[in-house]
């Protein structure tokens, strides 16, 4: 069953089209990472999912309810982390826990206080005086205490140092897998996603470039590094390459095809080369390869 279903989403700001007829699903119990360059519509999608933006056309459903009109019962099942770990910073960690606990009957404050005990903060210290990393732990602790079925995390790694990012990811993945939670997550730091997500959704301007299980994507999508014999040689338009990055005689050839197919294509196109090697990619490499550097 799908936790999230978005159908034929179309949205624009004035005359600028963000995307048209975008559709995707997030299956229950999976962690889906939404990747895309700035301006490709990640925040727009998050805002539509949370009911803070009405799409021009199409609809998003969460547990079968339109996100523009979620019932309190369904909202109770959704944990929401706003970009930048926004919280009520005028409260201290006791006040904010007391505040949220009143809204959720299944509130379990243990994970919250477990995380708080790791922070070097005084009980009455206001959240506004905490570091970004500490605030991220407060936000995460509150979501865990809420015990939602679906977590929507908007750019959770923003402003976090490597230690806090790792802590956040490890805690989250263990929790999600142990409790069969669904997570919809965006992040600018793609290497974080690799440790966290099951499925990947990569957006470009106005379209989806890839939506599949991360392992499948990483197995199928390949980068070949090629050194051309003649620097001026031009690799012709073809159906094999998803993207070609060329600097002088060095070529990065990104494709979903096998090595033999690429070699055969180069040979048939009379492209001579002195070096040919498949490069093992990280998710970040693959993302850049798919969306191009520019």
């Amino acid at each position, binding site marked *: 069953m799908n936790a999230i279903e978005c159908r034929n989403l179309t949205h624009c700001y004035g005359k600028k089209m963000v995307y048209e007829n975008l559709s995707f699903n997030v299956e229950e119990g999976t962690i889906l990472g939404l990747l895309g360059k700035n301006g490709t519509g990640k925040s727009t999608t998050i805002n539509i999912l*949370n009911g803070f933006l*009405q799409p021009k056309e199409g609809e998003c459903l969460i547990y079968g309810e339109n996100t523009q009109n979620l019932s309190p019962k369904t909202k109770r099942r959704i944990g929401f982390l706003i970009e930048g770990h926004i919280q*009520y910073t005028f409260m201290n960690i006791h006040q904010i826990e007391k505040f949220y606990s009143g809204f959720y009957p299944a509130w379990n404050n243990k994970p919250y206080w477990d995380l708080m005990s790791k922070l070097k903060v005084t009980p009455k210290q206001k959240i506004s005086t905490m570091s970004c990393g500490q605030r991220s732990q407060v936000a995460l602790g509150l979501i865990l205490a809420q015990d939602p079925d679906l977590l929507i995390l908007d750019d959770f790694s923003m402003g976090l140092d490597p230690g806090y990012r790792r802590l956040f990811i490890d805690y989250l993945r263990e929790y999600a897998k142990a409790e069969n939670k669904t997570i919809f997550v965006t992040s600018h730091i793609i290497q974080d996603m690799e440790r966290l997500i099951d499925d990947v959704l990569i957006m470009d301007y106005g379209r989806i470039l890839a939506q599949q299980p991360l392992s499948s994507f990483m197995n199928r999508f390949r980068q070949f590094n090629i050194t051309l014999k003649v620097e001026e040689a031009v690799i012709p338009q073809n159906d094999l390459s998803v993207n070609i990055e060329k600097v002088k005689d060095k070529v990065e050839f990104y494709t979903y095809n096998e090595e033999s197919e690429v070699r055969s294509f180069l040979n048939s196109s009379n492209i001579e080369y002195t070096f040919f090697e498949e490069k093992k990619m990280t998710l970040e490499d693959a993302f850049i390869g798919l969306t191009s550097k520019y």
Partner: protein
Amino acid sequence: MKSIYYKEWIKIKRVFSASLVLGILALSFIFIKVRHDILFSDAAGYWYSFLFRGSPYYTLLRFLPLVTGLGIAIAQYFPETVDKRIKLTFHLPVRENEILIRMHFFGAASLTALFVLFYTIFITGSSIFFPSDIIVPALISITPWFLGGLATYFMVALILLEPVLLYRVLFGIVGAGFVSFFSLRAGIGGYKPILITLSALTILVSVVILFSGYRFRKGEM
């Protein structure tokens, strides 16, 4: 629902306390001055200047409710606009309009509690020095100022939650004009004919915040 009121109290408690102290100080000053004036000039002359020269003893109260309403509205709604924290509020498992109404109710009730206390002190203090023939018109005169305090609260809340700057400016201009109706200079008791109208208008603007809330949720920017 106690949680909503708990958060709202955390936001406004300082301004609420400051307004309480300010109001008590202002009212204390008014009645100390009345006592001083009656003691050191003759009482008949004092009454004459009040009744016929239009220099009432409570003028100091004119902008107190307005300042209080402004302070409570800013304390309550400004923190919700920083980093668009209102998103957190709208994400709580309560209908969006219901949560706004409850927040608004809390602010308005706090303001009303302060105003009722100020009224009580005013009536008690006035009854020491003046007969009811003076107190009743005085109450009629100060009532629009207190209604204006509530109207200020409602309008400032609308402006603060409005997501579009242009609309904020527009609401600001309309709000300033609207609120000024409540503190126009008038003879003692002169507001009596439009008191009901002003009360009705105040009740009417109490729900306009739902408009800003709706616009925010639809993603206006």
